[in-house]
């Protein structure tokens, strides 16, 4: 656990002096409530950005935001609260750095992105001959599907929690999960001949 990266009292005082309005109580709350979920935030950012350095940037931005708004965190689930902030930080980062990756949530575009016909048989055959892992197939899922699957399978969050974090209806959570799992189940990576790897 990386809670050792927390903010000490002197840094807190510096923050107060330079930025004003932030109290040690808020820093304490940040350390006690938010930092235990730093790994969860990093894992989500890592799967969304698919890059070590970019994930660190997103989490750093999320930590700054969390510190700023920690006063609004009451008795609710701090992990879901922080993951919501991480997700927002990611989408802001994505708009600045990879705007093409954001598929507008109008339903149509996302459905098209996950349409069965979008799987090119030749590409699938090529991929099946390579030594790839299920993790690679997950990383290649469209963003809208990847995020709900990571929140469900890696964070083990409920439909309701995922709906709140991703700001979508529960029915959409269910349909995206189903599509995401369907895409993975049909992935040639799951059905490749293990002997192919030995022959390589």
């Amino acid at each position: 656990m990386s809670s050792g990266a927390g903010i000490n009292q002197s840094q807190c005082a510096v923050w107060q002096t330079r930025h004003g309005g932030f109290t040690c109580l808020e820093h304490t709350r940040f350390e006690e409530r938010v930092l235990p979920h730093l790994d969860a935030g990093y894992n989500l950012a890592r799967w969304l950005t698919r890059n070590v350095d970019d994930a660190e940037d997103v989490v750093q931005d999320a930590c700054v935001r969390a510190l700023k708004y920690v006063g609004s965190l009451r008795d609710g689930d701090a992990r879901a609260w922080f993951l919501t902030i991480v997700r927002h930080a990611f989408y802001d980062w994505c708009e600045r750095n990879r705007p093409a990756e954001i598929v507008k949530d109008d339903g149509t575009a996302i459905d098209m992105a996950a349409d069965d016909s979008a799987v090119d048989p030749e590409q699938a055959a090529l991929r099946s001959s390579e030594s790839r892992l299920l993790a690679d197939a997950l990383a290649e899922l469209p963003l809208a599907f990847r995020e709900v699957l990571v929140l469900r399978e890696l964070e083990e969050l409920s439909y309701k929690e995922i709906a709140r974090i991703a700001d979508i209806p529960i029915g959409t959570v269910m349909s995206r999960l189903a599509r995401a799992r369907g895409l993975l189940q049909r992935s040639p990576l799951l059905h490749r001949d293990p002997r192919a790897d030995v022959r390589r």
Partner: protein
Amino acid sequence: MKLERWSRRYADGEIDSLQGRSIEQHLRGCAACAAKHQDLLALRAQIRAEVPYFTGDAGAARAGAGAARQCA
């Protein structure tokens, strides 16, 4: 299709015990639904076995420290 949705909710632990017993009863008598249910459970097990959870011992710490530095 409706049964599939209920089966998925069952696999995700998103239904109550009474509904769960109904689903279990159906799965015992329907080979097609039972096969899909098993496929889903197998996929979930494979995800948890093969997909890494990035704890980012170094990365998360650097990110947290970075946030702290922005304070300083």
